[in-house]
Every structure is written in structure tokens, then in C-alpha cells.
């Protein structure tokens, strides 16, 4: 479109457009400043500083190239916490997906009180992670703890049993708390997908004499597949970010430490800022790759359907 052909109305529209543009920029300014100052600038700074030696206890910030990144491969604590994070992710995602789908299917069967059941089920998600951590610490505690008391009452010899004396049992206990907190999200996402399935499909299947299990396998599961993938992405990312429950229940113990606690200790207890930054950047990249993997998978499967 050339300038000469512009009619008067178009010109006035343009003036309005410029005023609109100014208003637009003014309206996004608060977001621009907050995100620029507190997310984009620090992100760039993380990348840049990870190539230097930044430690408030040592003078200067000399360029060290990829030294911080190389250091990770030989770091036994980092290796251990990676393995732990991997274990947490596998256990939590598996439990949340399997039990979450089961719970959603149960709630979907209710014809009365569904709203209240859902509210009760969502509650654990809404509570502060540390508070859930201390509550479960109390439940797991050896002497006056609820868990041991219930097991004793059921006839097992669990009086004063220590749940955190053994790495496997400690990590299971931490995972249980994490699943308790995060499963509601899976339930909500999967339940919404189940509710959007038209009931005619089930009516038709029933006419054909399909069993309940058959209907679940042949109608429900295929139609909630992309919702399951979304829920699994969320579950993976939040298990990756495990921190609150682990630090409350097992403090800084190396055996159960997830990667985020490793970064926290490296940066804020040992003050190896640049090493912490290199670590956090690698964790971010891996977490992004996993999310991307899920997204691509969803796209592929939905295109096939």
C-alpha cells in the first residue's frame, strides 16, 4: 500500500493507530520492566556468569570458559543428585498418572456431590509445600507418629520404626508427600477430559453389549490421551523441581538430595555462584527438552487421530 493512495479516512485511522500504539506500549510497560529486570536480564546474566568464576569470597571474576560445565562431570555429589532426581521423577510421574487416572475415573462416576469431592481432592495441592512437608514429618515420626501407630494397630511391628534411616525408604516417603501434593493437578486435568466425552458414545457401546472395562479401554483412554500427556508433562516438571518436601523431610542429606537442593547448597552455602549458575542452566535445558518431547509427542498423536 503506497502513501499517495491513502484516503483521508485511512490517514485518520493511522493517527489513531499511532495513539493506540503509544497507549499499547504504556500499558505493557509494567510487564516489560518487571520481566526485563527480574527474568530476562538475570537469565542472560546466568549464561554469561557461568563462563566466569563468580564467588563473593574470592576477588575478581575471571573468564574460565567451560570450566564450570566440565566440573559437573567429575562431581560425585552432582551425579548422585541427578540420579536421585531421576528416581523421584520416575516414581512420582508413574504414581500420579496411574492413581490420578483411577481417581478421576472414580469421581467421574459420581452423580451427586462431585463438586465437593473435587474440592476435597484439590486441597493438598493448594497448601504450602513446606507445611505439607512438616505435617508428613509428624506423621512419619518414629515415636508419636500416626503412620507407625496405625501400622501397630493393624498388627505390624512398626513401633518406633525409623522411616528415614534407609535411603530407599526415605526417598519413598518423600515421593509420597510429593504425590500427595501434585496428584490433584493430574486428577483435575484428566477429569475435565473425561467430562468432555459425549455420553452418546457410551450409550452406543452399551447397546453393543460392551463391558465397563471394555468401554474404559476403547472409548475413555483413547479420548483422554492428550490430557494424560499434558498431566504427565506437568508432573515431570514439578518432580524435577522437587525441593520443599525433600529439604524439610531429609534436610541436606546427600543420599536423598535432588538436584535443586544441590544447586541451592552450592550457590547459597558454598557461595560458588558461577558453578551454581552453570548447573541451573543445564537443569533448565534438560527440563525444557523433556517438556518439548512431550509436546511433540502430543502433536504427533493428535495428528494421527
Amino acid at each position, binding site marked *: 500500500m503506497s502513501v499517495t493512495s491513502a484516503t483521508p479516512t485511512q490517514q485518520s485511522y493511522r493517527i489513531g*493507530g499511532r495513539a*493506540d*500504539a503509544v*497507549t*499499547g*506500549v504504556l*500499558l*505493557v510497560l*509494567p*510487564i*516489560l520492566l*518487571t*520481566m526485563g*529486570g*527480574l*527474568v*530476562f536480564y*538475570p*537469565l542472560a*546474566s546466568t549464561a554469561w556468569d557461568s563462563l566466569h568464576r563468580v564467588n563473593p569470597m574470592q576477588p575478581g571474576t575471571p573468564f574460565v570458559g567451560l570450566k564450570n560445565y566440565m566440573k559437573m562431570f567429575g562431581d560425585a555429589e552432582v551425579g548422585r543428585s541427578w540420579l536421585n532426581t531421576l528416581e523421584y521423577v520416575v516414581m512420582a510421574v508413574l504414581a500420579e498418572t496411574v492413581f490420578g487416572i*483411577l481417581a478421576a475415573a*472414580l*469421581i467421574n*462416576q*459420581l452423580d451427586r456431590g462431585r*463438586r465437593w469431592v473435587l474440592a*476435597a*481432592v*484439590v*486441597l493438598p495441592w*493448594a*497448601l*504450602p*509445600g*513446606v*507445611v505439607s*512437608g*512438616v*505435617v508428613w*514429618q*509428624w*506423621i512419619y515420626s518414629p515415636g*508419636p507418629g*500416626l503412620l507407625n*501407630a496405625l501400622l501397630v494397630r493393624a498388627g505390624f511391628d512398626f513401633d518406633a520404626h525409623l522411616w528415614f534411616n534407609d535411603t530407599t525408604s526415605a526417598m519413598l516417603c518423600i515421593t509420597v508427600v510429593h504425590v500427595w501434593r501434585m496428584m490433584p*493437578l493430574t486428577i483435575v*486435568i484428566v477429569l*475435565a477430559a473425561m467430562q468432555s466425552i459425549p455420553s452418546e458414545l457410551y450409550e452406543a457401546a452399551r447397546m453393543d453389549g460392551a463391558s465397563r472395562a471394555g468401554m474404559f479401554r476403547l472409548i475413555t483412554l483413547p479420548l483422554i490421551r492428550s490430557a494424560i500427556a*499434558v498431566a504427565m508433562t*506437568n508432573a515431570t516438571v514439578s518432580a*524435577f*523441581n522437587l*525441593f520443599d518436601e525433600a529439604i524439610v523431610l531429609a534436610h541436606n542429606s546427600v543420599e536423598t538430595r535432588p538436584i*535443586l537442593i544441590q*544447586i541451592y547448597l552450592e*550457590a547459597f552455602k558454598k557461595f560458588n*555462584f558461577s558453578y551454581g549458575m552453570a548447573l541451573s542452566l543445564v537443569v*533448565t535445558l534438560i527440563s*525444557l527438552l523433556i*517438556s518439548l518431547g512431550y509436546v511433540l509427542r502430543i502433536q504427533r498423536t493428535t495428528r494421527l487421530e
Partner: protein
Amino acid sequence: MTRTPIYIRIAVWAGVAVLLLWSLAPIYWTLASSITPTVEFSDKPLHLFPQMPTSEHYQRLVGLMDGHFGGVDVAQGFRLALFNSIVTSAAATVLCVLFSLLAAYAFARLEFWGRDILFYAVVATMAIPGYAVIIPLFRLMVATGQIDSYLGVTLIYVSAFLPLSLWLMKGVLDALPRSLEEAARMDGAGHLRILFWIIAPISAPGLTATAILTFLGAWGQYVVPLIFSPKQAKPLTVLIPEFAGKNFVDYGLIMAGGSIAIVVPCLLVIFLNRYLISGLLAGSGK
């Protein structure tokens, strides 16, 4: 509708009962323990209901009864932490909703250079975990003297929850019919007038969902205040674990403090459940 066989209905209700027990038992146990006298904790066998309910833990928390833990006045610390939690969460919620409402209007209704790039850049940061920026942020806050200040922590919360609330608000605005706005436009109303007098009231459910998600997120934060506000601006989430000392864990205090910290989210979930669920669904599909 054919009637569901009775044995299946029983199975469903049994399953739902297990689900409710799993979800609510720890919360019940928190509340029950918070009114159990300390001496009763060591009773064998354990009582599932407090035998002699007491308010001693709450009295120690709010200062009606003298209480010290590790040489520190419990009540003073608790009142300050409760106040800090409320102030920072509320301020973060108000700023976050306001900023995202303003920006969502600009992104949804106005044309300006770099609009789409900026929108997607902000929303994309949802995928970036907080720890990727936390170390430079710490240096920034030290350099500007904002450690242990309301402003520092609040702005970090805002930057963390803005992408999600912008995404939700933009979705709300995109779904609104434009006829009302156009009519107001004809009458000579400006952008801000349209935004606050027409759009804000009809998008109240979306605003509520955004506000709840932001408030719950800020209220439950632990890592950020642990690093950025460890003393004067310390919130409940940082204070409560401190009642577990090296040699002695005061579970009465922890459970009473924990009960107060979970009452606020519980009320939000019970009364605003509908908005919360819609917000969760819109936010999880990103």
C-alpha cells in the same frame, strides 16, 4: 439411563472414600494435633481424637501464653511472619492481576511494534524454572539493598506469576465479544475507561481465577523467601520449619502454625473452587 448395578455403586463409593481419606487425613491430623496437649503426644496407644482439647499451642503462638523457642520469642516472630505472608502475597496478587490486565488489553486490542514477540517472550518464560534466574537475582537484590524487603520479594513473586496470569487474562479478553466496547468507543470512552468500566467487571471470573492462582503461589513460596527475606520479612513458610530445632521439635507449635498457614488456602479452595479449577485447566494446557 439404565441404572448402575448396586455393587458397582458400592465399589465407586468405597473408592471415593479411600480417595477422600488419602486427601483429607493429613489435614485432619494437622488440625487435631494442633489442639492436642503436648503430654498426650506420647500416649500409647495413640488417640485418633484429642482426649483433652487445648488451645495452649495457639496461645503460645499469638502471645496469650509465654513461649520461647531457641531463645526467641515465639509470639513476636509468629505475628510478624503472619503479617509478612499476608502483605507480600496480597501485594503480589494485586500487582500481578493489575499488570496482566493492563497488558492483556494492549496485547488483545491494540496494535504496536513488537507486540506478538513480546507476548510470546513473556509467556515462554513459564517454561523457565525459577532457579535459572535466582542467583543473579540474589546479586541484584544485594546490590540494590532489597534483601529482606517487602518490595524485593513481592516483585520477584510478580515476575514469577506474571506469565501465567498474562496468559489467562489474554485468553479471557480474546473470548469477550467486542460489541460492548465498540458501543462505548462510539460514545467517546477512552481505553482506560473501557478497560476498567466494561472489561474488568465482565471478566471478573477470569480475574478471580488469576488472583487465586497468584495468591496461592505466593502464599506457599519457600525457596524465594528463604533466600531473599530470611529475617525481618520472613513469611510463615520459612518460620514454621524453624520450630524443628536440632535437639527438640516442638510439634505442637508446628501443627498450630501449620493449621493457620493452611486455613487460608483451604477457605479459598472451598469457596472459590469453581474459578480455581477453570484457572488450573487454562494454565495447564500451555
